[in-house]
């Protein structure tokens, strides 16, 4: 027999194929076409529905991408006046609310034994109506819902018995505006027109009122040369973003701050009465009022309160006071709760109605007067839930049609002539925005100084809404739990920030369990020792420490809502170190990964162009395109929106706390932050950061070491990663100097219906496979298809990866480096441009533009 190797392999192959054919799969795949197909839907093509984000009161516009009747990604609505195309991490995670595995599936009624039992809608309605009637006059508690839902609630119980409850309601700012200008409204802040922005404890890039719009405005102002100053006791993300951080008590600094004689001044106060009043007077003195600070539009938060006390019969509509205002429901005799999820409030309620999440609902919202945002269902409801409005109509026996018709009738009043066309256009636009008459504000009186609490010895506690979870409502999204906090890099936990001096006094080190006690209670959490907080202060993020909020939020971290801001004490409990943080060194060790410059921006003359270095080897040839990215670190606010957008787009699994602790986080793009001391003596701590993702190197170290060519270089300059070729040697990850590659150590399961969120255009990777950023290859292919249909080449801006799309500050630019006129090629030639680890000669396709620290 002249058997050779090839024949042997063939026989082996046939043998195993025959063997495999013997094992039949459990059931053959079925093709199930529609009985009656939905209109407009073409299988395999995406549909987009515009709606409004309701993850916080900002009211950003969204576009939901729908494939085969399922939403799998939301993006910002580029035409929207609030956010203009960007959307934050919490907005991106709205789909994880929709597909949350812990959503309520049936109404619940408390039985005689005091346990909540599943019930039919009719039973629950009957129980609710009887219970409410017994308990007296009904009070409705909702979040900020200005629009049809608010009208409906007020027709039922009247305005006096409707409480707009928002845990973060900015009452101090509204009160200061009323006292100084006679207008008890939140101001409209025009960051884009400002030249000097001074923030007094106002974290405008994180959670403050409308952070996406503000981030966009500040990025625009910075492109025009604006300077950003932050005063406050914490190096918050916004403070880290600022050109200058003035550490200290912002109340004192605001009172003594001297505004320069300069056009375009804008001061913003945090939610503190002393600061807010001082900032108003400051803005008045600097001529900012009616210019950068305006009062033309009122905010939906204007009637909101953060202090809640209710009694009698209470209906809670999609808000969670039992968590964020502990004991607020104690006096209530009968509580009905409308919520998509099990929450602390549903646990305290007598009857619970499961309602749609915002992506399934009709609705509208008016975040600012004249900005009428529409909400339309982007898909049919996942579970047997109902519109909150419809539940209210039934509970109150209101003479109203179904909520959708009620909403339409309300909109008919906005534009009676030619309504049908107006309605259709508004749905397509995402709403309707109108100009409002100018409302001039003038100082009406010089009010007396509010009395500040006397400074007491000991520690002062600061609590702040967290970037990922806001006031706690976003805590049940796994992506946001896994999103490392940009400053501490901590995942799946809460912490208390404490200065090393204070920590040393109490013998506390990072990760130790501590107890924080204030006059109103105490919590246990982990310590994070950090020079970014002033001695004498400690700070805790809000939003964690849920007891009943689904599998992702319950039992994670500690709830700081019960703690009063002000004097506090800290005590070491144990030396365990259970705080899980990603990222390695806090210092750059001179490697210049995240660069910042203090050089003044060059005005006028074009900067000298950088020369390409010579190489012994011929360069790669590219067909038409060489894809590249430019990340402007001067615009980036480290908000993490890109990271969550990447999770949503690319089917990235959530690893969980234990696996992250083992270094197995799966994110394709990450924030690397480094601390440094300023160059001047006695300068406070500084934080610099960069986004790290696959650099799509021209001389890629990963490609050369792959034994099976799973990592390869394509003709468009991309480092391909072909999953079905990959055998999991992990050589590529070991050879990658950027640590951009992630290995699937496990087969990650997604509990139903979370798997509905998966992007059908991206492979779901299995165990044993390496993965990394692909520059959203599926979007490149889709854009090429689109161009082919229109018989043209791709134009600059046709391809937008998920990270670049979501960026509120538009810091990420993507395009063809081979086209010298493209935005990315122009960015790569800028004076500020650099590449990370250029000295390794990897020739990355990602260009960073170094950050500027503008000095006066």
């Amino acid at each position, binding site marked *: 027999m002249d058997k050779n190797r090839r024949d042997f392999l063939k026989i082996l192959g046939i043998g195993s194929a025959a063997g495999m054919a013997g094992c039949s799969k459990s059931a053959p795949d079925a*093709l199930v*076409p529609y*009985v009656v197909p939905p209109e407009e839907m073409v299988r*395999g093509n995406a549909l987009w529905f515009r709606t409004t984000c309701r993850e916080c009161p900002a009211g950003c516009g969204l576009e939901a991408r729908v494939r085969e009747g399922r939403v799998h990604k939301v993006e910002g609505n580029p035409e929207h006046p609030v956010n203009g195309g960007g959307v934050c991490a919490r907005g991106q995670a709205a789909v994880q609310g929709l597909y949350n595995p812990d959503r309520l599936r049936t109404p619940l009624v408390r039985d005689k034994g005091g346990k909540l039992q599943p019930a039919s809608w009719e039973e629950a309605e009957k129980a609710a109506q009887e219970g409410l009637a017994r308990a007296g006059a009904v009070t409705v508690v909702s979040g900020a819902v200005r629009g049809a839902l608010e009208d409906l609630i007020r027709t039922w119980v009247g305005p006096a018995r409707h409480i707009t409850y928002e845990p973060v309601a900015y009452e101090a700012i509204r009160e200061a505006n009323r006292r100084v200008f006679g207008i008890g409204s939140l101001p409209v802040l025009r960051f884009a027109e400002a030249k000097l922005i001074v923030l007094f404890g106002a974290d405008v890039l994180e959670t403050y009122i409308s952070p996406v719009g503000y981030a966009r405005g500040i990025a625009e102002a910075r492109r025009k040369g604006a300077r950003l100053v932050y005063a406050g006791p914490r190096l918050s993300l916004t403070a880290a973003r600022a050109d200058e951080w003035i550490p200290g008590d912002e109340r004192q600094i605001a009172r003594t701050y001297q505004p320069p004689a300069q056009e375009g001044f804008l001061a913003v106060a945090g939610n503190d009465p002393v600061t807010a009043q001082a900032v108003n007077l400051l803005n008045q003195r600097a001529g900012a009022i009616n210019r950068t600070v305006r009062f033309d539009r009122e905010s939906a938060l204007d009637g909101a309160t953060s202090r809640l006390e209710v009694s009698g019969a209470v209906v809670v509509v999609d808000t969670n006071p039992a968590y964020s205002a502990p004991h607020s429901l104690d006096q209530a005799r009968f509580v009905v709760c409308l919520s998509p999820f099990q929450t602390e409030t549903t646990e305290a309620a007598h009857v619970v109605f499961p309602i749609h999440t915002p992506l399934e609902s009709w609705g509208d919202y008016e975040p600012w007067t004249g900005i009428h945002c529409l909400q339309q269902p982007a898909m049919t409801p996942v579970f047997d839930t109902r519109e909150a409005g419809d539940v209210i109509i039934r509970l109150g026996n209101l003479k109203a049609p179904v909520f959708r018709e009620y909403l339409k009738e309300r909109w008919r009043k906005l534009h009676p002539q030619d309504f049908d066309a107006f309605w259709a256009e508004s749905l397509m636009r995402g709403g309707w925005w109108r100009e409002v008459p100018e409302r001039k504000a003038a100082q009406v009186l010089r009010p007396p100084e509010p009395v500040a609490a006397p400074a007491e010895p000991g520690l002062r506690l600061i609590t702040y809404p967290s970037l990922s979870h806001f006031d706690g409502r976003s805590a049940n999204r796994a992506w946001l739990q896994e999103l490392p906090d940009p400053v501490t890099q901590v995942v799946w936990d809460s912490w208390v920030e404490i200065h090393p001096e204070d920590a040393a006094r109490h013998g506390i080190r990072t990760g130790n369990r501590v107890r924080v006690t204030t006059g109103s209670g105490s919590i246990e959490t982990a310590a994070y020792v950090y020079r970014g907080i002033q001695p004498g202060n400690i700070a805790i993020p809000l939003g964690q420490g849920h007891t009943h909020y689904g599998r992702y939020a319950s039992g994670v971290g500690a709830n700081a809502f019960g703690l009063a801001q002000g004097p506090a004490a800290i005590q070491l409990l144990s030396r365990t170190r259970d705080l899980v943080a990603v990222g390695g060194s806090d210092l750059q060790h001179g490697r210049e990964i995240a660069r910042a410059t203090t050089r003044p921006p060059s005005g006028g003359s074009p900067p000298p162009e950088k020369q390409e270095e010579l190489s012994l080897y011929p360069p790669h040839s590219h067909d038409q395109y060489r894809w590249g990215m430019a990340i402007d670190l001067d615009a980036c606010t480290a908000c993490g929106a890109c990271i969550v957008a990447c999770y949503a787009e690319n089917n990235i699994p959530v690893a969980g706390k234990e696996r992250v602790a083992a270094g197995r986080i799966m994110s394709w793009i990450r924030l690397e932050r480094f601390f440094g001391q300023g160059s001047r003596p006695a300068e406070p701590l500084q934080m610099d950061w960069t986004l790290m993702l696959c650099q799509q190197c021209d001389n890629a170290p990963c490609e050369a070491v792959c034994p099976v060519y799973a990592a390869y270089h394509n003709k*468009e300059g991309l480092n*391909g990663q*072909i*999953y*079905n070729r990959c055998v999991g040697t992990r050589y590529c990850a070991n050879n990658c100097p950027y640590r951009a590659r992630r290995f699937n150590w496990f087969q990650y399961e997604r509990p139903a219906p979370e798997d509905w969120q998966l992007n059908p255009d991206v492979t779901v990777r299995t165990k044993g496979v390496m993965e990394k950023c692909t520059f959203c290859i599926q979007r490149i292919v889709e854009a090429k298809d689109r161009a082919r249909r229109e018989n043209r080449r791709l134009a600059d801006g046709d391809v937008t990866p998920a990270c670049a799309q979501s960026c509120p500050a538009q810091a990420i630019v993507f395009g063809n480096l081979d086209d010298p006129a493209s935005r990315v090629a122009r960015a790569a030639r800028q004076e500020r441009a650099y590449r990370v680890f250029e000295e390794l000669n990897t020739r990355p396709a990602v260009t960073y533009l170094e950050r500027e620290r503008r000095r006066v």
Partner: protein
Amino acid sequence: MRYWLGILMAAAAAFAQAFSPDQPIAFSHKIHAGDYRIQCLYCHSGARRSPVSGIPSVQFCMGCHRQVAASKPEIVKLRQYWERKTPIRWTKVVKEPDFVFFNHYPHVKKGIRCQECHGPVETMVKVRLDHNLNMDRCVSCHRSRQVSVDCYVCHR
């Protein structure tokens, strides 16, 4: 040795290609596409405008079969699906592996006949998987037409 190897391969190939399951309705492509010469894209219209060719809805079938051959036993079955408003669970014959993204639209636009990949479906009373739709087939066709064979064209 070569002889036996050939027989083995042929047997294995025959085994692999014989996949031709019974369907809930004995739909004959031979009658529709062969005898009556109805265009493939008339029913599988998705291939013209999207990655997926699509299976026609029950409503679409009833568009003709309210009148045409309404009393034939298979059409009676169809009408029962329509009246009960239940979808038909066809058994999938042509299956694309999980890690491949095939897009019908550009192929149809280039004028590639459906039969080049799906075989002579218009002659089949019952659809069968006539030949392997493996990567070799895709790549050799792409090569011969000088179309990109970059991995990222199909694998993402």
